[in-house]
């Protein structure tokens, strides 16, 4: 790390950030212990981190290699999924019925999108960057737009992954349920996009690390990897992240939007837990199970360590701070810390529940500071209402 930094500093200024970025990426992959995991994530990593496919300004094509599983006998094969399907039908709502007439003024300090301590301006000043009150508001607006943009990109991934998973899943009750999730995710894309488009007017590009996760699971042919990636990892992280913003925002439209989305997501994660618990316990060899355990861990780390709003850095501070300084700022600012931690509140108990928290991996999570969430309730023990109540 030290060596890299010194090397980078020898480069001409304009190259510096790019090369630093590549070193960071190389480091992530260098640290992966399981060659199978490296093989599963590596190609997506090159596409996302080196070639930045998500940021080329053109649509991205991702080949899919899964099997569509048909069943002409329509068995009723999973009672829990059938009950989720019934609940999902009753829980449908219309994105148009949110209070869209609400006037969102991102710069009104009386109705803040996110709290003032979200980014530590004292630390920023210690790096020699001083912001006036107006600029601080603009920075917080940028961060909010960044987070919501990543939510939106995640929802697009969820929409297509839900469709793939619906094709591939072996339970017919799961397919019925899956059809509602496709609708749910479509609605989430609708409402997040409408909020960003008509209220914030600022759409950030997809974060490279989020791109890697989505690319990796969309192109993986194994249905349970798609499930694990989307229903457990991305959705689980999103559920935590939505919760932080839901709890902290004073903007009534955003709050109402998230309240509705969170209730849908609670079902989605529940479905992931139900589908995978049995699969991982009864139908995989230990080798296969531990590969998934490692994959989940690497993805968790990727999001824990790298999901750092570098798009906002590029916009605001590329010439005023080093990437390392930005990373320090983001890792120590109370709001961002909260955001990046609470993402895991929902995820870790679910990994435990589906059997991806065996003693061999626990010390690694411990080192990453994520074991404190281990004893939380998993998604199958939580309804959407309880989840919201927990947040108050």
């Amino acid at each position, binding site marked *: 790390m030290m060596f890299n930094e010194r090397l980078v500093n020898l480069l001409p200024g*304009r190259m510096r*950030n790019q090369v630093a*970025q590549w070193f960071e990426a190389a480091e992530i992959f260098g640290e992966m212990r399981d060659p199978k995991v490296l093989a599963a994530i590596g190609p997506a990593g090159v596409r996302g981190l080196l070639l930045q496919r998500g940021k080329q300004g053109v649509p991205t094509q991702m080949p899919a290699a899964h099997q569509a599983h048909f069943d002409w006998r329509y068995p009723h094969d999973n009672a829990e999924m059938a009950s989720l399907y019934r609940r999902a039908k009753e829980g449908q709502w219309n994105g148009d019925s949110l209070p869209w*007439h609400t006037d969102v*003024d991102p710069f009104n300090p009386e*109705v803040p999108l996110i709290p003032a301590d979200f980014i530590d301006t004292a630390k920023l000043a210690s790096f020699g960057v001083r912001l006036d009150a107006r600029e601080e508001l603009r920075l917080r607006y940028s961060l909010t737009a960044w987070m919501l943009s990543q939510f939106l990109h995640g929802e697009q991934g969820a929409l297509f992954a839900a469709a793939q998973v619906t094709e591939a899943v072996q339970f017919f009750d799961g397919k019925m349920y899956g059809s509602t999730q496709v609708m749910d995710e479509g609605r989430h894309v609708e409402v997040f996009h409408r909020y960003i*488009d008509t209220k914030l*007017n*600022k759409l950030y*590009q997809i974060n490279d690390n989020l791109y890697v996760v989505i690319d990796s699971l969309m192109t993986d042919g194994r249905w349970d990897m798609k499930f694990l990636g989307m229903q457990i990892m991305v959705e689980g992280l999103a559920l935590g992240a939505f919760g932080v913003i839901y709890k902290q925002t004073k903007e009534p439209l955003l709050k109402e939007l998230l309240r509705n989305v969170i209730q849908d997501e609670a079902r989605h994660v529940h479905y992931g837990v139900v589908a995978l618990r049995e699969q991982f316990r009864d139908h995989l060899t230990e080798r296969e199970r531990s590969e998934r355990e490692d994959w989940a861990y690497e993805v968790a780390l990727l999001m824990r360590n790298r999901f750092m709003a570098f798009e906002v850095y590029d916009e605001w501070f590329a010439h005023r701070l080093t990437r390392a300084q930005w990373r320090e700022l983001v890792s120590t600012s109370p709001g961002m810390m909260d955001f990046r931690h609470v993402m895991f509140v929902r995820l870790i108990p679910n990994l435990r529940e589906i059997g991806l928290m065996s003693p061999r991996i626990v010390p690694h999570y411990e080192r990453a500071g994520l074991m404190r969430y281990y004893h939380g309730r998993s998604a199958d023990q939580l309804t959407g209402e309880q989840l919201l109540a927990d947040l108050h």
Partner: protein
Amino acid sequence: MVKRTPWIERAKGLVPARWRRDARMVLDGLAGRPPPPYWSTGTSSRAEAPGPSPLPGARSLRVAAVTRETPDAVSLTLVDLRGEAIVYRPGQFFTLALRLNGEVLRRAYSASLPMSEASPPGSVRVTIKRVAGGRVSQHLNERAGAGDVIDVFGPSGSFVVEGAPATLVLIGGGSGATPLLAIAYDALARLPDTRVVFLVGNRSTGDILFCDELAALADRHPGRFVLRHVLSHPPAEWGGGVGMLDAETTARELDALSMEGPAEYFVCGPGAMMDAVRGCLLGRAVEAGNIREERFSSPVHTAAEQPGGDVAVTATVGGRSYAVVNRAHETVLESALRQGAPMAFSCTMGGCGACRMKLREGAMTMEEPNCLSADERAQGYVLTCIGRATRACVLEADPS
């Protein structure tokens, strides 16, 4: 001379576009030209296209039925989108806000049936008479269709019967018959000791609104309901009254209806007719307190001056203060509702006074004419629904 393509151009043709884009990303990154971190948005139309969100404070009603009353008038039966009952008193009106050519036009239309007659139950029927060159009335007469969703405010207005007068005299011209019909239905059903006299003025037989309904009411209540049609252009054999509802004709018609006991008068119609009838009634020693009027004429509105930018407004409502920004393109009421202040309002078009507040500081322009009396203006009252702040304002909810 043969023109030769440089080798690099030829090579490009062999490499898929996708790879060239990948290579460009890497090279641009090294050259210090990273991809743009974000796009500015707000140009996509998906969100706006179908069903725009309701105006602040409005209720979305669906047109359940369209009934042609006369060649120049149409009735719309409106139901709540969520199935809730629409509650109002006979004589009250609703404000329909229509988006035409990117502009929101608000017009008042009175309920033409009381709640007890509404079909289906919980709905409201409004009747719109075409006005020559009128934007909303023409639109509704020509275009309104079942399934349309309309933003509606109200009910508003105090053109309602209080108590149980011995005689109720309803005098209406043209579309003025609308609230009077609702009042007549209601009084006949609810007040068994009240006699109802209905004097209706129109141009010709084809213009008479609710002709059959009125005849049916007369049949049903032979002793208690007196119906008298007056036409300015009557057909050859016509048994009713003749003339415009001016002072003279009105006096003649009232003389013919030997009325005993005290009466309350409800008058509704075009401005000129209303002035004439009022003069006539006062001349006949009717107390001003017994004359109730609803003016349909919405004379040419002078829009309030549009201030240049955002203006700060502090509104005290229910003992709490709300800091609001009055946006340049909005009324104070619209801005305040959007920003979460629990403002009082009803018609949203300066006609009912529900949004009246006291202006403690600052300045506001208002559309004219409106329902504020000279007295109220002198005391510093304003109507937030048609007001725009020109300087920072401090407003206080009406204690009365």
